[in-house]
């Protein structure tokens, strides 16, 4: 879904209009600033849809917590806090490096932009590794979603609450992980272009927009972390 963000910003080698202006300006915009602001609005609208999509899952999770209060609290114990907290720190740092990359792009420092972008991709990679570690732990324990749930030693044996909890756990962290992967793809592609010096203070829209997308991914994790890892 979000790969479409690539198209949000104008075509880098847009054909120049009759009167001389920035090569990136598309024919139906009068100024580059109008084009940048339009792309920003488009991106923020897309982020609103992402907020509502994840919101649907949060709503489902909240309502199921209301249905199975005891099973959900007990299932929370299976999630260790340390990897969750580590992931939060990693994502916050990646948000920082992302915003530094945007700053560097805006001040014509191509090399620095590329370095910060690769740093962000690196942090994302660390996040995925921690996630992979947590998932393997879940697979071994048999804490799988829906009908695959075969964990023993639950307090209320036979209640479907545990399977529902882990279904939501895998759906929400899975969808979030998918967005992190998409972000890594986009950021690497951006870093390559930054290395080629395509971004300047006149044209840095892709970096800014994908930065907004990345900050939203971080924002979703900021809410996921307490809801899953900190409930006792």
């Amino acid at each position, binding site marked *: 879904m979000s790969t479409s963000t690539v198209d949000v910003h104008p075509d880098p080698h847009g054909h120049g209009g009759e009167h001389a202006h920035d090569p990136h300006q598309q024919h139906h915009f009068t100024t580059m600033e109008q084009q940048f602001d339009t792309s920003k609005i488009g991106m923020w609208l897309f982020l609103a849809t992402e907020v509502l999509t994840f*919101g649907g899952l949060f709503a489902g999770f909240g309502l199921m917590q209301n249905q199975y209060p005891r099973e959900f609290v007990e299932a929370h114990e299976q999630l260790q806090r340390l990897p969750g907290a580590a992931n939060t720190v990693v994502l916050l740092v990646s948000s920082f490096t992302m915003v530094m990359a945007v700053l560097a792009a805006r001040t014509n420092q191509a090399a620095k932009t590329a370095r910060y972008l690769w740093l962000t991709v690196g942090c994302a990679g660390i996040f995925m590794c921690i996630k992979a570690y947590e998932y393997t732990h879940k697979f071994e324990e048999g804490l799988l979603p829906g009908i695959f749930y075969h964990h023993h030693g639950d307090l209320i044996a036979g209640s479907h609450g545990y399977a529902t909890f882990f279904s939501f756990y895998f759906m929400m962290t899975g969808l979030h992980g998918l967005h992190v992967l998409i972000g890594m793809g986009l950021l690497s592609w951006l870093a390559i272009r930054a290395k080629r010096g395509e971004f300047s203070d006149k044209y840095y829209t892709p970096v800014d927009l994908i930065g907004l997308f990345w900050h939203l991914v971080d924002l979703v994790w900021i809410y996921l972390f307490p809801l899953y890892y900190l409930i006792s």
Partner: protein
Amino acid sequence: MEHTLTAGSVTGDRPRPAINYLNAEKGIWSWMTTVDHKRIGIMYLVAVSTAFLIGGIFALLVRLALLNPQHTLFGKVWVTAEAYNRFFTLHGAVMVFLFIIPSVPASLANFVLPMMLGAKDVAFPRINLMSFYLWCGGAVLAISSMILGAVDTGWTFYTPYSTTTDGAVGLMTMAAFILGFSSIFTGLNFIATVHKLRAPGMGWFDMPLFVWGIYATAIIQILATPVLAITLVLLLIERVFQIGIFDSRIGGDPVLFQHFFWFYSHPAVYIMIVPGMAIISEMIPTFCRKTMFGYRAIAYSSVSLALLSFIVWGHHMFVAGESDLANVIFSALTFLVAIPSGVKMFNWLSTMYKGNISFETPMLYVLSFLFLFAIGGLTGLFFSTLSVDIHLTDTYFVVAHFHYVMMGGTVIAFLGGIHYWWPKMTGRMYKESWSQIGCLLVFIGFNMTFGSQFIMGGQGMPRRYFNYLDQFQPIHAFSTYGSWVLGAGLFLTAINLLASLKMGELAPDNPWGGTTLEWQSSSPPITHNFDEQPVLEHEPYDYRHRTVTHV
């Protein structure tokens, strides 16, 4: 009142440009990779009309199956209960997801909105094309789900039936999932266009009311469709993994699914009606040759309809097992939503007062819209009143209500809009007499088909019923004959419009004397819409300093 349109209309006719957006590039590839909003609008119009044809065929099959309680045609039983269930499900799904949601915003608005703003194109042309291909992908999935064991759950996919039946529910939910994104990207495009690409001198209250309506619809598309996406994903995962959120056998709550579903689907019915109202608000000033009465009231009512539509979804679930407190709250809020619709109706009528009204086909569609939407809107009062809703919900009374609003409202306005902008889109004029007969047939057929269903509904005929009680046979037969008249009217309208492509007279730039910017371009317009950037020098519907003369 035979009106022959001569060229002497408002803007003196320039010579027709040889190159326009239709013949600027030739070949199918130029159409498939176009980013011109006009071509995408035409492609959407063709695609959406095909979906309307398919949905219409299923509608005729549903009505034919109910002709008599024995389901015989010429003495032979031709349909079973399962086939009937598939007919009405596919009629609902195709009409809602494939036709009526993208109909006005994606086809007419795609074509006309940028021109009304004096812009060269929508904000993100390539996302516009991607939205069209997402629609095509969704359509392919929907058609394949019909072939591989059609869905029989109703277009609402209520659980636990939809999670326990073996029809191709998965395919149809994926189709709706992808169509949702096509709708999101259309909305996203229009909001960005309206914010940033208005002509110089065009403030928010100088924009045509059509643009206000499409802007309000775009807000709903952006804020409601993602929740449908997640609901369908949850339904798919529930079918495959049995995660226990909607399926009651494993602790889920079917009423929860209805909350998720209707949080999208009620705003979706405003995605359907608000563009229809927008077209009517565009055509009335043109054919009454009078400035719009209460421009700001109509603009605000469109946006307030968009926002209020998000807090009333519970009235679909009054008897579904919702708590009494929620029922009372939703009933109160549902009454609020009736006010903006009423404001629009009164303002439209006040514009006709002291107007100078000519009755070309678009105006006939406006009059039938006012007639049918008044009935559709007023019968809504029966459902927001909690006690009367208990008896009338899930009966043919509600079937008649929503067809009066959706078909009597949006589809009639859509047909009016097509006739209104046909000269601009194709550069051809359609045969006035045939289109007026078509409109009359549609109006009579529609009232026969659905007017009778109000009576049946009141008497307790449940909806989605195959073997109905014999007492309802006369009305069902009458309704089925009405559906044939309606089908004939639509068929005649389609033939007349398509015939005009070849045999129609060449259309002037401004056949109706409209004052909005799209009429300042040539018919059909050039690829960049205008030779030079049009500047708005008067209010949107200003008829003071000129009279529209046509014989």
